């Protein structure tokens, strides 16, 4: 079936997003999924916002060819998005479940307030990655970044797991204000950093066997997604950063007289 630039075959649809406003594009995606489509292929994407916004369903996959705009996968609850290119800012914003795979670099603010699901980025990411990520019960959000990141990595982090691989980088992979205000979750690094430069609210440890067995399944999936050697990826020492307290501001206040 062909309607306009869309080709639907069984449970698949291919949508040509060329010159399309995000509102129209996202409406077509929503309606396709409502009509039973499980695999959405987007062609010629060029900066359209909100792809995957609020979509539900573990069996939905959206493949993006081109560079999607801000807020990719915002409020998403289950689907997988594969981007064969770079992405812009705010991907996985307040995401609840699902997976975003980026075969390129990401902009600022990845996984803000993310509560579940996985975000795998092959390349680098910008500022404020994983801010206020939170885990809850069985929901453990996981972000893996292949390259390096900008400042405010894991700021206010309240839960979940972030892994910074620092592949292809000889210089240090993190910026300033690393883990500032962190009060939950864990950050793993494949590269030792000069810890003295970073937040006083966190502790720096070597990852133990328990950590590595937890990380392994995610790292193997990451290696598979990006065609990397899984042995290289899981070899060597990982470093772990955890908050020194779940209550960083417990003694900050005094009840006023009035």
């Amino acid at each position, binding site marked *: 079936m062909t309607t306009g630039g869309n080709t639907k075959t069984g449970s698949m649809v291919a949508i040509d997003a060329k010159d399309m406003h*995000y*509102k129209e594009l*996202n409406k077509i995606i*929503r309606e396709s999924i409502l009509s039973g489509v499980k695999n959405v292929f987007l062609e010629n994407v060029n900066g359209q*916002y*909100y792809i995957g*916004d*609020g*979509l*539900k369903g573990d069996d939905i996959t959206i493949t993006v060819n081109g560079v999607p705009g*801000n*807020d990719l996968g*915002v*409020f*998403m*609850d289950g689907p997988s998005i594969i981007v064969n290119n770079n992405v812009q*800012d*705010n991907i996985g*914003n*307040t995401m*609840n479940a699902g997976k975003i795979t980026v075969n390129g670099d990401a902009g600022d*603010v990845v996984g*803000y*307030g993310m*509560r579940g699901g996985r975000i795998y980025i092959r390349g680098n990411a910008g500022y*404020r990655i994983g*801010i*206020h990520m*939170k*885990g*809850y019960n069985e*929901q453990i959000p996981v972000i893996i970044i292949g390259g390096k990141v900008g400042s405010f990595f894991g*700021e*206010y982090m*309240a*839960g979940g797991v972030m892994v910074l691989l620092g592949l292809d980088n000889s210089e240090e992979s993190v910026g300033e204000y690393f883990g500032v*205000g962190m*009060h*939950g979750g864990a950050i793993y690094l494949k590269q030792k950093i000069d810890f003295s430069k970073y937040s006083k609210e966190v502790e720096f440890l070597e990852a133990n066997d328990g950590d590595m067995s937890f990380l392994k399944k995610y790292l193997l999936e990451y290696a598979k997604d990006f065609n990397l050697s899984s042995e290289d990826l899981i070899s060597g020492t990982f470093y772990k950063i955890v908050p020194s307290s*779940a*209550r*960083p*501001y*417990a*003694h*900050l*206040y*005094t*009840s*006023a*007289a*009035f």
Partner: protein
Amino acid sequence: MTKSSFTNVQSEYLAVIDHAKCIRCKRCIQNCGWGTYSFGGDKIIADHSKCVACGRCYTYCPEGAISILKNPTVMRENGNWQDYHIKNIWRQSETGGIAISGMGTPLKYKKYFDHILLDACQVTNPPIDPLREPMELKTFLGKKPSKIELDFNEKGQPVLKNKMPPQIELATPFIFAPMSYGSISLNAQKVMALAARALGIVMNIGEGGLHDDLVPFGKNIIVQVASGRFGVNRDYLNSGAAVEIKIGQGAKPGIGGHLPGEKIGADISRTRMIPAGTDAISPAPHHDIYSIEDLRQLIYAIKEAVNYEKPVSVKVAAVHNIAAIVSGVVRAGADIVYIDGFSGGTGAAPTIVRDNVGIPIEIAIAQVDQRLREEGIRNEASLIAAGSIRSSGDAVKAIALGADAVAIGTAALITMGCHVCGKCHTGNCSWGITTQRPELTRRLDPEEHGEKLYNLINAWSHEIKEVLGAMGVNSIESLRGSKERLRGIELTDSELKALGIKHAGM
């Protein structure tokens, strides 16, 4: 300063028991959330330093044996150094902590509502009797079309051609102000949910997530998205009548929130979707909003998530440049802008911010309404005025100054027993409102107090009808932004100009 003078003066109140009347039933011991009372073998004894004058004990003393008195031990009077300055200095010199308070500021700033008078009809343009004639309080919150386009059907009757953007329909121009589960008890939220449903209005659950028990009240609930994103997911966004992005709060503009870990029990943990026992920190900014353009991005992310079927509100604190800010917020796509004046309440805020930051709601709403009219975008969003609306008179004045509706928070809590003691942040509220202690929260009966809150809003709605009738208007909408129906007294030219009203006699 000796230790004894320190503690004696720090007791703001004295809990005095008339032992001749006291029957030693110990109800005061049970009722006081602060631990003021204990049984000393043969009589009740009071630790005055713990009393905050919340009024619970004397309300429930069957013999009327308790009097709460202002501590007569004076600090030497000084017009400059008020006793709270001195006491805060003592406290902070002990702990080094940031002074923190609850409720709105208790300081005596000028209250502009008390310097504004309403108009009424005499002889010409006769008043309307609301008991006999229809009087419309129904209010729709949301974006309105810039002009009405009509078609005519085959009978020649007009039919609206515009596709109306989504609206919240209020039977009367009140909503309940955002208060989260965590800052207040679940029973206090249930009081507002029951009253909102019975009244045909809405409550706002604040940023603490939506408890399962409130899900059935969805049509009467505004859900909030704040910087902590607690409990926010796709289903949450779609569970209410509207979604509100909280940028700021009148009591603490520019300040985030912080629910301490000891208040995050199992039920709050589930509702906020965070682990029990960790601090729930709402950062001061949303980390994805550093500009009007970024705000627009979140507004439309939410509109996409709700399929453009619900209005999006943005809550901001009234600060110095509020008119320009709200203009930007409206242009960013907000359907409703909630403006919270500087005397608005809080569960907890640094005292320095609560008492010193922001501007009064009366001036903010007048300035915003004027600015949006001048820019031709007043129809693009509805305005809600908040920040200590104490009476129906305040509500009418706020609407005449430019609001579509008003929000009440503290007034709603007062119907639940609150005596405005301002100790919400301690979690000891004897009335079961701003506490999570089960022995205290269970005393707040949602049905009983839901009815009281219903009664209050009903009474205020009748009062508004009376004054509308006296002004000769038959719908609240006709009064909105009608500053000609207001006059100022005891106000300077600058104040009158800021409010956009004339002095009495002019």
